[in-house]
């Protein structure tokens, strides 16, 4: 086989195992991180309950999906969950706003230290976690329906004649498209609308914003609604792509925090960059490059052992390393967020 085919194979290989998974996982992280960064920027605390909000949003989607399915409503090749999503977002937003009114607003009025908010968010995390477990149990649920693959590995091989296959799952494409739409809508909202501008002003300088007559309660309310919507979207996309397990979302918290801090606290665009960055590093650090090197090296050289920087189980370590490096080298993050 000639060298150019080898190079093509290498390209397909890396796209299939690193690029596409990073893009879809990165989109999910980015959506979560935007919520965290907005709450961090405006309410000024790290919300430990964010993972559980994602979990609850997904749960609501699953229930509504089941209800739709039982009534025979479906969207053909698309997952029914997309139809359920708006209702689930509404539910989750209501829940999050209720939590804010009943728990967090008290500390805001009393001007408590940020760390008190964090402790309160731990309490919320416990409650939401329990609620999700009580409602659905701890089993793994797969709620994807519709068409699974857009491109199948076998079909791709036949079509191109390459020895490496490329598989593209529908959920991966959906994730990317929905993430792009959500992010564009959010950026438009923050840049163009009055409320969005008020939010940015509030995040930059609270006192000045208050002096200019911005209503803080409204800003906080909108922030929670946006964070809850994005969290639900992220949770559902993650659940569609993999599966829903109540405990999984807690572990997403670390990469999400890493993404938010890497991007710069209070910078939605930074959180998105951070999300993709963390996802790409996580996946490429735990990918075995043995085959890839075999393809790109001229001649017959092939490495004997696995060329893998870290085993898959240590992917936490990657987000953590990134987090620590950024905090030590450039605490403001890529996009110069604030240092709280």
């Amino acid at each position, binding site marked *: 086989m000639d060298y150019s085919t080898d190079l093509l194979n290498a390209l397909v290989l890396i796209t299939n195992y690193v690029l596409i998974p990073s893009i879809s996982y990165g989109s999910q992280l980015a959506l979560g991180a935007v919520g965290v960064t907005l709450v*961090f920027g405006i309410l000024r*605390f*790290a919300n*430990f309950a964010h993972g559980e909000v994602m979990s609850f949003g997904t749960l609501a989607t699953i229930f509504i999906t089941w209800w739709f399915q039982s009534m025979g409503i479906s969207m053909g090749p698309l997952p029914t969950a997309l139809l359920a999503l708006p209702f689930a977002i509404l539910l989750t937003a209501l829940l999050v706003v209720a939590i804010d009114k009943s*728990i967090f607003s*008290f500390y805001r009025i009393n001007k408590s230290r*940020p*760390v*008190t908010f*964090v*402790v*309160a968010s*731990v*309490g*919320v*995390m*416990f*409650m*939401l*976690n*329990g*609620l999700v*477990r*009580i*409602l659905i*149990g*701890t089993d793994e649920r797969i709620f994807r329906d519709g068409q699974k693959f857009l491109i199948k590995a076998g079909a791709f091989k036949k079509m191109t004649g390459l020895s490496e296959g490329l598989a593209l799952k529908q959920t991966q494409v959906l994730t990317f498209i929905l993430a792009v739409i959500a992010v564009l809508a959010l950026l438009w909202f923050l840049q163009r609308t009055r409320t969005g501008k008020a939010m940015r002003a509030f995040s930059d300088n609270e006192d000045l914003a208050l002096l200019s007559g911005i209503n803080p309660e409204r800003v906080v309310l909108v922030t929670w609604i946006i964070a809850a919507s994005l969290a639900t979207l992220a949770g559902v996309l993650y659940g569609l792509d993999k599966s829903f397990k109540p*405990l999984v979302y*807690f*572990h997403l*918290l*670390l990469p999400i*925090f*890493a993404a938010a*801090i890497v991007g710069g606290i209070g910078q939605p665009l930074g959180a998105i960059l951070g999300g993709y960055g963390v996802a790409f590093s996580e996946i490429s650090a735990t990918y075995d490059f043995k085959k890839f090197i075999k393809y790109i090296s001229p001649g017959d050289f092939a490495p004997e*052992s696995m060329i893998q920087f870290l*085993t898959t*189980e*240590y992917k*936490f*370590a990657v*987000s*953590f390393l990134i*987090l*620590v490096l950024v*905090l030590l080298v450039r605490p403001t993050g890529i996009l110069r967020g604030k*240092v*709280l």
Partner: protein
Amino acid sequence: MTNSKRAIISFSIMALLLVMVGYGQAWNVALAILNLCLISAVMSMGLNMQWGYAGLFNAGVMASTAIGGLTAVLISYAPVSKAWSVGGSSLLAAIISLLITITAGILVWKKIAKGRKRTWSMTAVVLIGYLFMRFFYEQGTYAIEAVDPAKTGFLGGLGLPILFSWLAGGVAAAGLAWLIGRIALGLRSDYFAIATLGISEIMISILKNEDWLSRGVKNVTGLKRPVPYEVDLQQTEWFINLVKWFYGTADDGSALSADVMREVMQLSAGVVVKLCYTALFVLVVLIILGLATRALNSPWGRMMRAIRDNETAASAMGKDITSRHRQVFIIGSAVIGISGAMLTTLDGQFTPGSYIPLRFTFLIWVMVIIGGSGNNLGSIIGAFITWFVWIEAEPASLWLVGNLDIFLEETSPLRLHLQDVAPHMRMILMGLILVLVLRFSPKGILPEKAPDHY
């Protein structure tokens, strides 16, 4: 109400509750709860030093607990000599390569002036060092894990009595805390929390995956106990006599039948073993409580509180904030490490899969907050209450579901579902307690009291 009155009342209520469990359920259950309450008390005293004395938000309590547990294995398990002979030298080579890499790295950093040359040499040193390390490490671990994998497949420990591990666990946790402190201290509280959370997750993945060290998810079971075994106890003369003297006759004065006697014997053996543990744990709790209270009331304790309450003012008075934070972080983690070793000793096994942050980090937080941050006795009562609720929430909610008869049929799907999920009630209950205490009584059950002798 003064603090001492509050303490007496709350501890009496706690004792009453445990006695009620003893009579209502079984003495074995009550003692099992008490033992874990005592271990939790050690954990929460450790966290209280970090949070209550110094205001550090440590979200990585689990890392200290887990390394304490690992130490219990490494101290007490008999060494697996075959694993040492096949893989020991390679592992040693890996460690030496690590040390050489670090030394070379430091040399490069110090000797070469800042610039492109240093960056490149540094990269080269790290890469070459990594390759060597990886090579020896894989050779060693592969050989070790192949040694009788169904039974051992790891290096084993030192084969010492497990009680040593309580001290060693503290030392190991202190070492880990020093390392964590180097990386994460000096960050703002939220960042510190996130960083410690990350480290604890990494710690658990290491324990789950480094089979040569901890057997990973295959677990280490059958650790030697510091107290007698139930089976041996039932053969011992004095024990049999004691039980006979205690339960010798039935209510009407006649002798007990052999079957009843055997059952009584078994139950009493369980109780005696648990009481032995209780005695050991109470000793540890009292020692740590005494030391912690002395430390808190000393000039050092006042300095810590001053740093917590106003870092700027404390640093203006010449206090080195970061190094003081590191100090208290290390001491607190050591205490938590001791509790980790105690827990593994009590369980008699080490199961990395059982370490989850909700149970081993955030539950300890609930204990400290509801007991009263900054108050050592408060942490103990907080630990007791929290653990009691954590355990008894499940039977209580099952009982509640059981009493839904009036509304729900025996076979109604909702009722069956409720029975399935009853154990998860405790999550909601914990969150609710935490949020309510934080809102209505942020100082906890026993508030921190400033000593009078300023």
